[in-house]
C-alpha cells in the first residue's frame, strides 16, 4: 500500500526550485501566474480567496502565507491545503497537503508527485490498467445484477396486478359475508328470545351456579398458571443466555453464583465443563435430569401430568354450560315438555329448513353417540348453535376484511420509495430469508421481516430485531437510502440494550450475506449483496456526468 522511503537529505532552504504549478489541479493552473509583468522580486500573487497579496516567489516555497493555504499547492506547508497529482496514464487525484512530503508514497498519487522527485516510482500505467479492469468487472457485475433487478421490477408489476385482482375478489367476498352475518344475526335473535325465559329459570339450579363458580375459579387458575409458565420460560431463557453468554464480566462473582444456581435448579452440567468439552464435541453430555423428577411427581396421588392438565383443562373450560345444564336435566329428571327446538322449523324461512334439518340430525346423532341424547332436543342448545354460527360468520368477515386491508397496504408499499422502492424492485425479496454460518452461530435475516441469531450447537435463538426502516441518514429514493436496513427491538441483552441489526447491502448478482460483526455490544452489523441494488449501468453513467 505504502512504500518506504529512505530519507533524502535536502539542502537548505528546501524545495526552493519547485514549479509554481506543482500540485495545482488543471482547473486552477491559469490562476497560478504573477499578477504583473515585472520580473524578479517585484512580482506579486494574490491568495485564491483574495485575502492577501504575497510575493510571487512565496508561491510553493514551503512556507504558508495564505490563510486559505492556496500559496502552497505543491508542499505540505499549509495545514488546510490540497495537492493535485496528475497521474498521467490514470485519473488525476487530490490528497490533503498533510500527505505531501511525509515520506510515504500515497496510493492516490501513482505518479509519485507527492514526494521529492525520484522518491516514489510512477506506477500509473499499471495502476490505471488495474483500475480499468476493475471498473470493467464492476460494470459487468452491475449489468448482470441489473438484469435480475429488472426481473424483480417485473415481479412487482405482476404482484401489483395480482393484488388489484385480489382486491376486487375480496370486496365481493366481503359483501357476501356481510349479508350472511345479517341473516344469521336475525336467526340468533329470534332463537334466543324463544328460549331465554325457560333457560333463566333452569339456571337458578344451585348446581349450575356452583358450576359457574368452578368455571371462573378454574379459568382464573389457568390464567395464573399460564402467566407463571410464561414467566418461568422467560426467566429460563434469560438464565440460559446468562449461562451460555457468561463472560466473568465486571468480575462479578454474584453472576457466577447465579449461573451455578440455575444449573443446579435446571439440572444442567456446569457450563465451564461443557465449554471444555467443546473441542471434543462432547457437549452432548448435557442431558437434563429434570424430566425424570417430573414423572415421579406425576404418579403421586393420581394427579394429572402437566401436559394432561393443560389438555383437559381447555376441554373443560370449553364445555357449554347451558348445554350441560340441559343434559343434566335429561339425566336426573323426567322428560320435559315438548321441546321448542324441534319446532324451530316453524320459525325458519322455508329456504333454510333443509340445511337446518340436516344440521339437527347431525347434532342429535352426535348426542346419541355420546350417550347423552334423550330422543328430543331442546331450545337452549339450538340458540347456542345459532349464536355460534353467527360468531363464526362474523369472524370470517373480519378475516376477509383484514385480508383486504393487508392487500391495500401491500399494494401501496410496492411502488413506494419508503417501502419496496419507487420501482418496486424490493418486493420480490419480501420475506426472503438469508443465512450466514459464522461457526458458533448462524445468522438469519428474513428481509423486511426479522433477523435472528441461531446457535449452531443448540439452544434458543435470539431475535436481532424486526425490520423498521431503511437508511435514515439518506433521502428516501436515493440509491444510498437502500444500502442499509435497520432491524430493531430484538431480544434484550442481559444488562444491555435490545439487540439490533444494521444490514449493509451492495450490488451483487446474488442475494447473500457476507460478513457479520458486533461493533458494539448487541448491535450487529451484517453485510451482503443483492441484485436489487444493481442500477442499470446506463443510468450510473448519467449520474456521473
Amino acid at each position, binding site marked *: *500500500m*505504502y512504500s518506504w522511503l529512505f*530519507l533524502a*537529505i*535536502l*539542502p*537548505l*532552504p*528546501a524545495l526552493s526550485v519547485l514549479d509554481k504549478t506543482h500540485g495545482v489541479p488543471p482547473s486552477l493552473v491559469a490562476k497560478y501566474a504573477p499578477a504583473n509583468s515585472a520580473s524578479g522580486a517585484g512580482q506579486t500573487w494574490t491568495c485564491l480567496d483574495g485575502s492577501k497579496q504575497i510575493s510571487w516567489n512565496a508561491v510553493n*516555497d*514551503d*512556507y504558508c502565507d495564505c490563510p486559505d493555504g492556496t500559496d502552497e499547492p505543491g508542499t*505540505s*506547508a499549509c*495545514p488546510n491545503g490540497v495537492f493535485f497529482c496528475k497521474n498521467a496514464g490514470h485519473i488525476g487525484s487530490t490528497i*490533503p497537503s*498533510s*500527505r505531501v*512530503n*511525509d*515520506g*510515504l508514497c500515497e496510493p492516490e498519487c501513482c505518479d509519485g508527485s507527492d514526494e521529492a522527485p525520484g522518491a516514489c516510482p510512477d506506477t500509473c500505467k499499471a495502476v490505471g490498467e488495474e483500475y480499468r479492469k476493475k471498473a470493467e468487472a464492476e460494470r459487468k457485475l452491475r449489468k448482470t445484477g441489473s438484469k435480475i433487478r429488472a426481473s424483480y421490477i417485473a415481479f412487482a408489476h405482476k404482484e401489483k396486478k395480482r393484488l388489484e385482482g385480489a382486491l376486487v375478489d375480496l370486496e365481493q367476498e366481503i359483501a357476501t359475508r356481510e349479508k350472511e352475518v345479517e341473516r344469521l344475526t336475525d336467526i340468533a335473535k329470534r332463537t334466543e328470545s324463544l328460549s331465554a325465559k325457560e333457560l333463566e329459570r333452569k339456571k337458578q339450579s344451585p348446581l349450575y351456579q356452583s358450576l359457574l363458580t368452578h368455571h371462573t375459579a378454574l379459568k382464573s387458575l389457568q390464567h395464573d398458571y399460564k402467566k407463571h409458565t410464561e414467566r418461568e420460560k422467560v*426467566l429460563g431463557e434469560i438464565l440460559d443466555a446468562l449461562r451460555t453468554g457468561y*463472560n*466473568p*464480566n*465486571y*468480575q462479578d*462473582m*454474584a*453472576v*457466577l*453464583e*447465579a449461573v*451455578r*444456581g*440455575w444449573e*443446579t*435448579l435446571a439440572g444442567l452440567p456446569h457450563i*465451564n465443563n461443557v*465449554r*471444555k468439552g467443546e*473441542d471434543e464435541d462432547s457437549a452432548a453430555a448435557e442431558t437434563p435430569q429434570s424430566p425424570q423428577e417430573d414423572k415421579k411427581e406425576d404418579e403421586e396421588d393420581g394427579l394429572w401430568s402437566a401436559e394432561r392438565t393443560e389438555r383437559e383443562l381447555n376441554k373443560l373450560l370449553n364445555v357449554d354450560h347451558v348445554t350441560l345444564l340441559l343434559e343434566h336435566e335429561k339425566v336426573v329428571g323426567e322428560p320435559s315438555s315438548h321441546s321448542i327446538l324441534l319446532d324451530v322449523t316453524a320459525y325458519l324461512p322455508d329456504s333454510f329448513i333443509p340445511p337446518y334439518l340436516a344440521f339437527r340430525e347431525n347434532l342429535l346423532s352426535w348426542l346419541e353417540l355420546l350417550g347423552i341424547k334423550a330422543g328430543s332436543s331442546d331450545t337452549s342448545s339450538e340458540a347456542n348453535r345459532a349464536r355460534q354460527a353467527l360468531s363464526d360468520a362474523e369472524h370470517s368477515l373480519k378475516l376477509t376484511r383484514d385480508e383486504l386491508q393487508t392487500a391495500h397496504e401491500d399494494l401501496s408499499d410496492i411502488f413506494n420509495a419508503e417501502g419496496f422502492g419507487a420501482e418496486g424492485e424490493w418486493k420480490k425479496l419480501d420475506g426472503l430469508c438469508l443465512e450466514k454460518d*459464522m*461457526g*458458533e452461530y448462524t445468522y438469519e435475516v428474513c428481509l423486511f421481516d426479522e433477523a435472528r441469531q441461531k446457535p449452531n450447537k443448540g439452544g434458543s435463538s435470539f431475535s436481532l430485531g424486526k425490520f423498521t426502516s431503511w437508511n435514515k441518514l439518506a433521502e428516501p429514493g436515493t440509491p444510498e437510502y437502500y444500502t442499509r436496513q435497520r432491524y430493531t427491538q430484538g431480544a434484550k441483552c442481559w*444488562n*444491555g440494550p435490545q439487540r439490533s441489526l444494521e444490514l449493509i447491502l451492495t450490488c451483487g448478482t446474488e442475494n447473500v450475506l457476507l*460478513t457479520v*460483526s*458486533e*461493533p*458494539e*455490544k448487541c448491535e450487529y452489523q451484517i453485510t451482503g449483496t443483492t441484485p436489487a441494488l444493481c442500477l442499470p449501468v446506463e443510468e450510473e453513467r448519467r449520474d456521473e456526468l
Partner: protein
Amino acid sequence: MRPPVILLLLGFLLPASQTFAFKANDFKTCAQSGFCRRGRALSARALAAGSSWRFPYSIDPSSILLAPDQASFTASVKSALYPEVNFGLDVRLHDDGVVRVRMDETGGLRKRYDEAANWALVAPPSISRDIVWKVGKGTVHAVYGEKKNIEVVVEFDPLRVTLLRDGVEQVVLNDRGLLHMEHFRTKDDTKPVTIQDGEGEAQTTLQLNNRAWFEGEEQDAWWEETWSSWTDSKPKGPESLSLDVTFPNHRHVYGIPQHATNLSLPTTTGPDAGYTDPYRLYNSDVFEYLVSSPVSLYGSVPLMHAHNAKSTVAIFNAVGSDTWIDVGRTESGTETHWISESGILDVFLLPGPTPTDVFAQYTRLTGTAPLPAHWALGYHQCRWNYVSSDDVRSVQRRLDDENMPVDAFWLDIEYSEGHKYFIWDKKNFPDPVEMIKDVEALERRMVIIVDPHLKRDSSYPVYKAASDLESLVKPKSGSGEYEGWCWPGSSSWVDFFNPKSWDMWVSFFKTKSVDGRWSWTESTENVGIWNDMNEPSVFNGPEISMPRDNVHYGGWEHRDVHNINGMLFTNQTYNALMHRSDPPKRPFVLTRSFYAGSQRFGAMWTGDNVGTWEHMAIGIKMVLANGLGGFGFGGSDVGGFFGNPDPEMLVRWYAVGAFSPFFRAHAHIDSKRREPYLLDEPYKSMLRDVLRLRYAMLPVWYTAFREMSATGIPILRPQYVVFPEDSEGFAIDDQFYVGSSGLLVKPVTTRGATSASVYLSDPQIYYDYFTFHTYPAPAKKVARGRTVTVPAALHQIPLLIRGGSIVPTRERPRRSSALMRNDPFTLRVALSSDGSAAGEIYLDDGEGYGYTNGEFVWRQFGAETKKGGWGKGEELKIWSKDWARQGGSNDVVVYNPANAFANSVSGVRMERVIVVGVGSRPTVVSVNGGSTVEWEWQGGIGYGATTESKAGVLVIRDPAVGIASDWQIAVVF
C-alpha cells in the same frame, strides 16, 4: 458462609440498583484486616498512654559493629516485650546522603521476606566513602553534606532514628514508639501464661499477659483469618511490622500512589481526618473506584514526600506486602504510621532538600524511566474491543479520512481465541500479520494485550510450556498449580519470581520460533504489549486477587510479594520485547499494576475509570501523584472506561489526555463507540484541533521525557515542585507545568465552563499560548502569587507560556508522529520580564538505542535583549547552540555533533520563529550576521507590560536555519 444460591437468584431478579458502583464489600477495611486492626490498636494505646508510653525496642550498645568503610554499622536490637528474641539493625549511608535503615529478626523460627528492595532497586546503592559514623554514648551519628549541615542520629534506648538539616528535625523513625516487629512463634508458644491460684476445688484461673499494654489482650487474628467467604490459613502466624514516621516540621505530605485523592494527602487520623481508614497499598482490581478514597488501587509505591517552604524530604519503605498508612497532622508537622503484613524493615531516608533532589535520590535507588519509543507519545486509539481485523482497518481509515493523527491501535482481550493470549481468534482476525502491517505501513504501531493468567488448557502452548516448567504460582499446599477464575475461566498464573519463567517469556515473544519452541510468529517486531490484570486480578479470589497463602518461587507466600508481583510481569515483558529484535527496539509495555521501580519498564494508566467529570478531574491528580512516585509515564483513559460521555465531556477529556504523558482513549465493551470521527460538529473539529496540538507539541514532550529519563523529575510538575517556596501552591493539584518547557496547563474538568482560574506563583509575565494575551508580572514588591482568569470555552484550553521560555513545535499535521520526522520546526520565544528566554530540544531516532552512543541532537535555545547594541534602540538576539557538549547534563557520555542521527536531520529547518512580547516594530532581522529575512510584526505590548493586553508578536518568516546547527538571529529595533 456464602448465602444460599436461592437468595442470590432472587437478588439477581431484583432490579439492579447498584449496577454501576464501587463494591466496597469486595475489599477489606482496616477493621476487617487483622494486622491493620492490631496496628491501629497499638497506636490508640500509645495515644491513650500519652507521655507514659514505653518504647520496647532498644539497641544493645555493646553490639555495635562499624563496617570497614565506616559508613555502615550493624547492631543488635532487643525488645523489652520478648527479651529472648533477637533483632538485627543495619544502617548505611549512601554516597548521595540517603540513609538506609534495615531491621530483621535474627535466629528466628523462620525468615522474614527480605527481597522487596532487590526488586525495587535498579542496582545495589553505592555506600559513601567519606561519610563516617561516630559511635557515642547513647547514639551513633554522622554529619555530612557540602555544608556539613545534615546529621543523622541513631539513638539506642529507645531506638530512634532522626535526620536533621541545619539542626532542624526532618524525619524521625519511631518517634512515637510504634515500632513493632512481630517475631515468628509457634501456636503452642502463644498459649496465654496461666497461673493457678487458690486451693482445692476453688481454683481460679488467672491469665496474666504482661505484654498487653503494648500488644493488647487478645491474640487478634494471629493465626487463621476468615473474611467474607475466604479463610487465610496464615501458616506463619503473626509477622506484621509497625513503624511510625514523623515529619516534625512538614505539614504537607505527597506520594504513596496509587490513590484517588488529593495530591497533598488528606489526614486519616485526628478529629478532622479526611478519611476514616488509613491509606492502603495492596494492588487491587477495583471496579469503578471512588473518586476520593484511601482504598488501594492497582499500583503501590511506598514512597512519601514531605514538604515545607524550606525543605523536601522523603522516605521510601521497601515493603511488598499489604500496607496501611495513617496520616495525622501535628501542630507543626505530620505523623504517619505504616502497618505492613510481613517483611523486614527496610527504609530509606531521602534528605532532599529540594523536590528535585528527592526525585534524583529516589530514582538513583529505583531507576529512572527509560526514554520511550517516540511513537508511544502520540495518540493511542483503544477500545474493548475492535472486533476484527477489518474493524481495525476501518478505524484507521476513518481517522485518516478526518485527518486526525494517531500512532497506535490497540487490541483488548477479544482478539484472542477463548482468551488464550497470543492465540488469534481467526474467525474475526483471519489475517493478523497483514492487519498489523497495514497499520505499520503508516508508521503506526499496534499494541496487543497479554495478561498474566493462562487458560488451563493443555492444548494452549503458552500454558503448556509454563506448566511443564513448573513455573506457575502454587496453591497453599506448595505443590501443583493454583487455579483461579479470570477472563478465560479456569486459569493459572505465571510466577515471574521464578527465573525459569524469564527465558520462557522471552521465547514466547520471538516472531520466529527458536529451537522449535512455541513463539508468537503471528506478530511483528514492532508490536507493543499491554499487561493488564497483573495485581493479579482473580475473579473468585479474596479481594479479587490471589489467596495470601499461595506460594511463589523460593517458598515465599503471596502475602510477602503481592505488591511486587505486577511489576515482575512487566519487567519480563519489557525484557522479552528488548530481546525480540536485533538490534533491539525500545519496547512499549503498558501496565495497570506497579510497584517502586516499575517506571523502568514502560507506561501505566489509572485503570478502569468512569466517564464522569469527577473521574476526569481525579485522573489528573493521580497522574501527578504517580509522577512524584517516579512513574511519570502515565495517563487515564480518555472518555472514561465505563459509561458514555457526552460530546462536551469528551472534548474536555481529550484536552486532559493531550496534556498527559500517556494519551490513550479507551472504552468498555458495553459503551457506545466514541472514536473522535464519530462526533458531530463542532465537537469533531475540536477533537481534531486537540489531537493536532498534541502532535505539534511532541518535541516538547519528547524533550521532557529525556529530562525525566536523566533526572527522575516528572514530566507533569505540580505547582510545589516548580515553586517549592510558595506555600500557596502546596495544595494545588489541578494545574501543572510540562517538563521544563514553561508551559502551564489547567485542564477544564467541569461542565459549561467558559473561563478558568490559574494560579501563578512567580513574579513573571505569562502569555496565553494561543492568543498571546499577557498576564503581566506584578510589581516586584509583591511576594505572593496571583490568580488570573483565562478564557476556557469548549474550544479553548487554558494553556499559558511562562515568560522566559522557548518552545519548539512542529505544526504540520501528519497522520502519525513518525511521518513528521523531516518536518520543519516553529519556535515560540516568550520574552521574560527582562527580555530574555531559554529553551531546549532533544531529538533522536525515537526507536533504537543509537542515542546511548551519542546519536542525537540536543540544542539549547536562547534569547537576550540588549540596549543600544547597534548604537540606537534595542537589539534582540536569538540563538541555538549545542547543549550536549555545553553543560546540558553530566549524563551525556558519548557525543559527537556530527553523529549519524544529526546528519539525517541536517536538512530539517526552523521554518518560523514567533517572538512574543515584542513591543515595537523592528527595523531589520538578520541571520548569522548576514542575510536579512522577511518578518511580520503584529502590534501589541512588550514584555515589560504591566497590564493585561495582547502582546506584540514578531513572526520571523522562514529563517532557514537548521535544527541541528548553530545559528543566531539578530532583531534590530
